[in-house]
């Protein structure tokens, strides 16, 4: 359904009273017989009339504009989203009033099912050119201009190259942390010599290497035992299966938000960030925060985290760069991080006769993993340096790589035959490795009578690591649950299973496919935050009239109207609230009497209004709210917007019970303490 069709449909679903109130306000008296479709058509004609549009636009003040821009930016936001975005600019009560008013002026409409707000499509083109242009909403300055000064941009430091280097470091089984969780001194020194600048202390956020380690942990690429971080191959392999871009986005998202529960939505934020921020435009920190808030709300539709700190992290990760003036710019080299090939013919690694291996930073994780596993990282820098040692080669063999596979990978990636001394050493080390073997597993001993059940089982074959002696089998501990079941089914029902440690070596299920569904790019909504709309060319007919002049003009028309005072007041109120934009609307037939507030000593009036709103809670469609004003002991007014639940009797007192908007906390207010009760309608005409 088009947005216009949706708008029309929303009018048709209004109850008659609300529908005719709208029609009367804009078109005057409705004569019977009527046809609702025709009336909507006439309303549309009124609203698209150029003169009326100019008047409506002229009456949009700065705060209206702020809300309209937010509605447009956040793309059909909920109330909560709007408040999250505008919360620092206006109170919830003000925002609520403003939204009601904009709805009354038909500039926005609310989808009661989705509880979302959208711009009236009839005004969209006009608003788009005049109000919603992103370069006006988020004014940026070209980088390199005198206002911003120069800017240097490096590739973001967190990427495959660093992840590989860290994994390579962690592949060597050694205690990394003290029992209090801090790094052991020796490792601190080691890490400083390998990772240099990444180990520089930061007050906040974390120093880069700590953040990288935390990210690996967040993503399940390593698991933490008490004093160690242990690489988790299944998770690493799963991540390696994604594209370079997807992997980098996952690293950055995990580092930015520090969790995996909502990573999918957070990834959408990051992608929108990458795709929407104009290259080469610098934004002051405050504007960048607004931009990030808008992007986060729009892409995740969830309450944003602390945006100030998010922007600091974006900068810390190098996704944002800073100009000399302190403005922020999206890193122009983000896409370079996603490159997974060098220039044509350029080898991905360099293997030297010294056993040193240089891994080019663009080599993808999956391809580089066998290399980083079989070598020790010596220096993480622009071109990370590794060295193949006997120990590192051995650990690669222990990790399940074949010696020939490693040699072939090194050769294929370097594009040259391995140096003779390196090839010779790998072969020698592999022979040495296989000449003495250390197996970890579960020993199954079956006596002569039952042995055949194991020996001849085709299903057990893959789980037997070694036949140690007749009837003595070494089984794979990681697949315990599988082979235990097979053995039972094969007839070894009395398997003394309880004697087996159930915790050791099992790969947690969540690591088997930890990134399922995460890697795929999803754009559930239009993320084109910076859609290109040309600035309007001002012509005589497009010049907006002066708002004060319109109000004067309307006041004169009202003066000329012969109507009772209460009607006159109602019309004057509508002019003030900008529901009336053209003198043709000023007619005694546009209003119907309705009481919206009770104050002072009008106790009965207050009770009646409360009861009306309570009654409304049972109906379908937009619910009415109550605005209650009380006074503190010192006499200061306290305004509360609430959704009433019930009126309770406590002794001689009536107490209103309900939920405060927006946080939904319960509130109990004695009616006698209320100095004002105001009915807040879904719309004026609701």
């Amino acid at each position: 359904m088009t947005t216009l069709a949706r708008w029309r449909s929303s009018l048709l679903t209004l109850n008659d009273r609300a529908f005719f109130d709208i029609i009367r306000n804009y078109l005057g008296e409705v004569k019977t017989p009527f046809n609702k479709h025709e009336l909507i058509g006439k309303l549309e004609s009124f609203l698209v009339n150029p003169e009326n549009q100019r008047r409506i636009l002229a009456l949009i003040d700065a705060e209206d504009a702020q809300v309209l821009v937010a509605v447009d930016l956040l793309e059909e936001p909920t109330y909560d989203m709007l408040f999250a975005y505008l919360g620092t600019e206006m109170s919830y009560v003000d925002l609520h009033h403003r939204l009601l008013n904009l709805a009354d002026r038909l500039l926005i409409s609310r989808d009661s099912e989705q509880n979302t707000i959208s711009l009236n499509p009839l005004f969209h083109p006009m608003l788009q050119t005049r109000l919603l242009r992103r370069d006006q909403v988020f004014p940026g300055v070209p980088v390199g201009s005198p206002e911003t000064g120069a800017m240097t941009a490096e590739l973001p430091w967190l990427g495959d190259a660093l992840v590989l280097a860290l994994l390579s470091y962690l592949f060597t089984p050694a205690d990394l942390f003290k029992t209090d969780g801090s790094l052991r001194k020796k490792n601190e020194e080691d890490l400083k010599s390998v990772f240099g600048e990444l180990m520089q202390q930061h007050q906040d956020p974390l120093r880069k290497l700590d953040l990288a380690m935390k990210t690996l942990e967040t993503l399940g690429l390593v698991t933490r035992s008490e004093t160690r971080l242990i690489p988790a191959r299944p998770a690493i392999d799963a991540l390696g299966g994604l594209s370079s871009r997807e992997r980098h986005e996952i690293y950055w998202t995990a580092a930015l938000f520090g969790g995996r529960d909502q990573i999918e939505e957070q990834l959408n934020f990051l992608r929108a960030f990458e795709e929407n921020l104009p290259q080469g435009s610098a934004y002051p920190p405050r504007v960048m925060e607004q931009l990030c808030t808008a992007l986060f709300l729009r892409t995740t539709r969830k309450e944003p985290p602390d945006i100030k700190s998010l922007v600091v992290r974006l900068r810390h990760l190098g996704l944002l760069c800073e100009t000399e003036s302190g403005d922020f710019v999206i890193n122009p080299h983000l896409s370079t991080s996603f490159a997974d090939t060098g220039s044509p013919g350029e080898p991905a690694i360099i293997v030297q006769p010294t056993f040193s291996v240089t891994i080019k930073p663009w080599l993808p994780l999956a391809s580089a993993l066998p290399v980083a596993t079989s070598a020790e990282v010596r220096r993480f820098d622009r071109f990370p340096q590794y060295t193949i040692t006997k120990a590192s080669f051995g650990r690669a063999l222990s990790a399940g790589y074949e010696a020939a596979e490693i040699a072939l990978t090194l050769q294929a990636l370097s594009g040259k035959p391995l140096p003779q001394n390196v090839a010779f050493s790998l072969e020698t080390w592999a022979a040495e490795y296989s000449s003495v073997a250390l197996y970890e597993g579960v020993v199954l001993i079956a006596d002569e009578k039952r042995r055949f059940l194991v020996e001849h089982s085709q299903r057990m074959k893959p789980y037997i690591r070694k036949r140690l002696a007749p009837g003595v089998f070494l089984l794979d501990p990681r697949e315990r649950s599988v082979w235990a079941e097979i053995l039972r089914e094969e007839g070894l029902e009395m398997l003394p299973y309880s004697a087996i440690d159930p915790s050791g070596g099992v790969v947690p299920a969540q690591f088997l496919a930890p990134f399922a569904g995460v890697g795929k790019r999803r754009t559930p909504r239009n993320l084109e935050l910076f859609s290109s709309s040309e600035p309007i060319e001002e012509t005589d007919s497009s010049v907006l009239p002066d708002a004060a002049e319109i109000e004067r003009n309307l006041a004169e028309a009202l003066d000329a109207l012969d109507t009772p005072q209460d009607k006159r007041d109602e019309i004057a109120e509508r002019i003030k609230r900008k529901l009336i934009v053209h003198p043709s609307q000023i007619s005694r037939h546009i209003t119907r009497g309705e009481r919206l507030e009770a104050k002072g000593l009008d106790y009965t009036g207050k009770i009646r209004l409360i009861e009306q709103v309570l009654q409304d809670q049972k109906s379908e469609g937009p619910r009415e709210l109550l605005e209650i004003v009380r006074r503190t002991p010192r006499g200061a007014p306290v305004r509360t917007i609430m959704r009433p639940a019930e009126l309770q009797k406590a002794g001689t007192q009536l107490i209103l019970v309900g939920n405060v908007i927006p946080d939904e906390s319960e509130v109990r207010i004695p009616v006698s303490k209320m100095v004002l009760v105001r009915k807040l309608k879904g719309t004026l005409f609701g």
Partner: protein
Amino acid sequence: MVVDTRKPLIVQGDSTVLLDVHDAGYESARAEIAPFSELEKSPEHMHTYRITPLSLWNAASTGLSADAVIETLETFSRYPIPENVSFYIRDAIARYGKVKLTAVDENDSTLLLTVDDDSLRAELEANKRLTKYLLPHAEGFLVRLFDRGTIKQELIRLGYPVQDEAPLADGERLDFGFRNPSLSGVSFSVRDYQREAAAAFLGNSRPGTGFGTVVLPCGAGKTIVGMTVMELLKTNVLILTTNVAAVHQWRDELLDKTSLPPEAIGEYTGDNKSIRPITVGTYQILVWRSKKDGEYPHFRLFRERGWGLIIYDEVHLLPAPVFRATAELQAVRRLGLTATLVREDGREDDVFSLVGPKRYDVPWKELEAKGWIAEANCYEIRVDLPEELKIPYAVAGKRQKFRIASENPVKLEIARQIIENHPEDAILVIGQYLDQLYDIAKELDAPIITGKTPNPERERIYGDFKKGLIRVIVVSKVANFAIDLPDASVAIQISGTFGSRQEEAQRLGRILRPKKKNSYFYSIVSRYTTEEIFGANRQKFLTEQGYKYHIELWNT
């Protein structure tokens, strides 16, 4: 960030510079970065240079600015230069020249130290270690001539290398020239790079020149560079070198290639202490003293004549006490000769302060390409222990294990085979254990040189070896330093630990002399023993130097 993969350099954040040997711009990049960086490793594909404060001060002393250094890096770099590296270069170079030493007047015994920074001046004035050497003056500080070296040492430790522009003394004159052909009848001329090195050292003879270090690989003819400087200066020269054999080598070279008569050349060693216009002595005799805390009586050698030049051969081995004497000799021209600026004791800054900054450097690969030094091939041959030694090896202690592995008798068979494979070559067999060496010498019927071999006997053997009368000599580990074996083209290391990097460089230098054919360096190692660890260290060192290293199994 503009990435240009067609460029050969990668400047890393830790101030190392990787140079892609296969890039078309390799040659020019190498030449351009050499003045301000030290070659750390030069294996087959990617060389590593390091930019250090000393390398930058060496560059600054030749007039290179920080902008020029950064521009060179930018020109050849694949990626933008990391900001911290640019800052580091600017900071280090800015320090050079902030403190200058100049003469107050020609005959005065004091010098003027000017400081180009008020806060630095205040810092120096407040430094307690410096107060005894510095006398505040309107234009800076006055320094006694005697303290010229010491103040330079102290200031470089504070991170401020002194630009020494005080004049140098000319020394007593001595006329001589080169011969061509040489006395031995061989055509002789100074090679271009040797002449360039001498010219770089002497500079324009203005203040600030005439002291410094020339870095050339083993076998490149550093002696000839020293002689060229001597010939240009025509003055009395004191040459200090590492041992008696090297003293004799200098003397022989001077007699062979210059017009100097024998009586003009003195020898100052344990056996002979004649002081002549050209005197060649050892560091060893200079630092001899009768008591541990006594004076060094032979330091008087420095004052015996009006030396116009002191040459420090193998300056990276210059003993610490000689630095002290050198600190007092700052008015004399000083030439350091070495294959490497790296000192095991880390006192590279003393070489910079007291002998002088690097004035000339040419990597061995370039000389190898031009045929000035031999191309070397390195082989490691692994051999199993014989069955009867396997159990003794398994039950032996750590030291004994190494000895059993080293003395593996099968090595003799291999050495013999190698010698047979090189019928035209002059061959050195090097080892650590004397028993083993005597056995091998006997088996091969070759002469042996150990630390106990008297000098005349040693020189006779060298003489026969040079003349080609003998083709194989067996030498102990202690005998393979600073000896000159011009025609050795094969070395067979049958035992011995991996020494320091210097020792290994020296050992390799024995076979790198210019020849018409390639050189071979064999190490024989017992397989599956602790000897392999030392083999691995040697392998690392040699491959870092750029040598191809082959490992082969000996089939017993």
